[in-house]
């Protein structure tokens, strides 16, 4: 198949970028979206043009590196699919395909389609962890976890930190990502000691990074390749109110429930 790409080209973080038209000829319908870009890049290289820079790593939908907005939709038109798992058969011969980077002030563009997602790392570092004392390991089964909680925590834990929720959100809000992390840890007994501190710190960091605020439009849920539910955002909201209220009476605030 032949396609026409409209790609965001930008030399580096400081330069001005623009959309450029690049033709893709003889693309196999069975190739993945990233393989299509590889093919196009080879052609570009042969004609002495700088290839399109894009992020990728595992190419099997688990690392969260691939990050392309395809015709306005993060990770493209297929539901619950990362860009690397998207195939060219989802497109038509002769179609115009717009490829843009994640657009958010907090995700500065480094080059072409590659953005710096360090903001997510800093949110995670602000509270998305559990502290464990060193020493001999405990028996894994000595901390009972109710099945229901384990399931819910797992639903949240499948977040791969790709940032599609931010890219899809009309306000560039990372609520789904932050909520998935808060939810996952606050549901499990291991996360309880830092339960209040965590949610307050992560929500604060989210703001400090310059992300927007949630308006409950659920574009994130629709774009998320891991189908994380906005139910976790509601849980984070509840966690936040609880922690903010407990903060007023510090004695109760420590040690969780």
């Amino acid at each position, binding site marked *: 198949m032949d396609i026409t790409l409209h790609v965001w080209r930008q030399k580096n973080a400081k330069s001005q970028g623009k959309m450029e038209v690049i033709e893709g000829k003889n693309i196999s319908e069975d190739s993945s979206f990233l393989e299509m870009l590889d093919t196009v890049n080879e052609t570009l290289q042969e004609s002495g043009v700088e290839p399109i820079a894009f992020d990728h790593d595992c190419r099997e939908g688990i690392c969260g590196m691939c990050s392309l907005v395809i015709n*306005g*939709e993060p990770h493209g038109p297929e539901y619950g699919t990362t860009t690397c798992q998207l195939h060219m058969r989802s497109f038509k011969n002769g179609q115009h395909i717009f490829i843009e980077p994640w*657009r*958010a002030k907090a995700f500065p563009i480094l080059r072409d389609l590659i953005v710096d997602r360090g903001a997510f790392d800093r949110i995670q570092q602000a509270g998305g962890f559990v502290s464990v004392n060193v020493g001999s390991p405990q028996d894994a089964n000595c901390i009972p976890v109710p099945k229901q909680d384990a399931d819910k925590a797992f639903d949240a834990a499948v977040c791969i930190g790709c940032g599609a929720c931010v890219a*899809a959100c009309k306000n560039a809000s990372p609520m789904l990502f932050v909520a998935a992390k808060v939810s996952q840890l606050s549901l499990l007994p291991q996360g309880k000691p830092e339960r209040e501190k965590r949610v307050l710190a992560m*929500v604060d960091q989210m703001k400090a990074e310059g992300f927007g605020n949630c308006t*409950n439009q659920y574009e994130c849920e629709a774009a998320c390749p891991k189908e994380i539910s906005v139910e976790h955002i*509601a849980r984070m*909201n509840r966690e936040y109110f609880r922690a*903010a209220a407990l903060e007023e009476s510090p004695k109760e605030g420590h040690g969780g429930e």
Partner: protein
Amino acid sequence: MKLCHRLFQSSVGAKMLMAITGLMLTGFVLVHMSGNLILYAGPEKFNAYAHGIKSLGALLWLMRGGLLATFVLHVYLAIKLTIENKAARPVPYAYEATIQATAASRFMIHTGLMMLVFVIYHLAHYTFKIVSPEISALAPGDAYAMVVTGFSSPAVSGFYILAMAALSAHLRHGVSSLFQSLGLYHGNLNPITEKLGPIVASIVFFGFSSIPLAVLMGAIK
């Protein structure tokens, strides 16, 4: 007061205040609409109702003050959050797409600002009576005549109906959305909260708009 700071300054806290003030304003809107519908019971009943409100005295001023504070807070936070949200994406997408967000949810600030303009006009029109000379000329206690006089102008009625369409769109998203902001998203609750926005929106639109329409069509004289 750390809590106060958290409510106003954090993204999650500000949304909670939006939800609470939005809920209170929605409550006011529904009570106001129910009161207006007494118009259909005739001039005596409606004027007695209007007189009843006026004679609340200090309580009325307390309620007005509370309502004004709620409204100001809602508008202040709405504008603050919207500015932050716009700033969070300085460069727009060349190919702008919406996967599933409703139109109502995307135009909240626009329908909201239309409400702000409307509320100012509405107060000038019927409360301060400075818009139309015919209304300022009426006897002070005759609220019924005031409504009929006001709405016999198709332009005025048209503007009111348009404003109610904006309010209705605002509530369509807002009333469903406020539950999520308060953390009330749950499998058993969602089928109800999802429908509540559109239901309240329809009730408010038809309830309010029926009055100028009835006046225009001569059903209320």
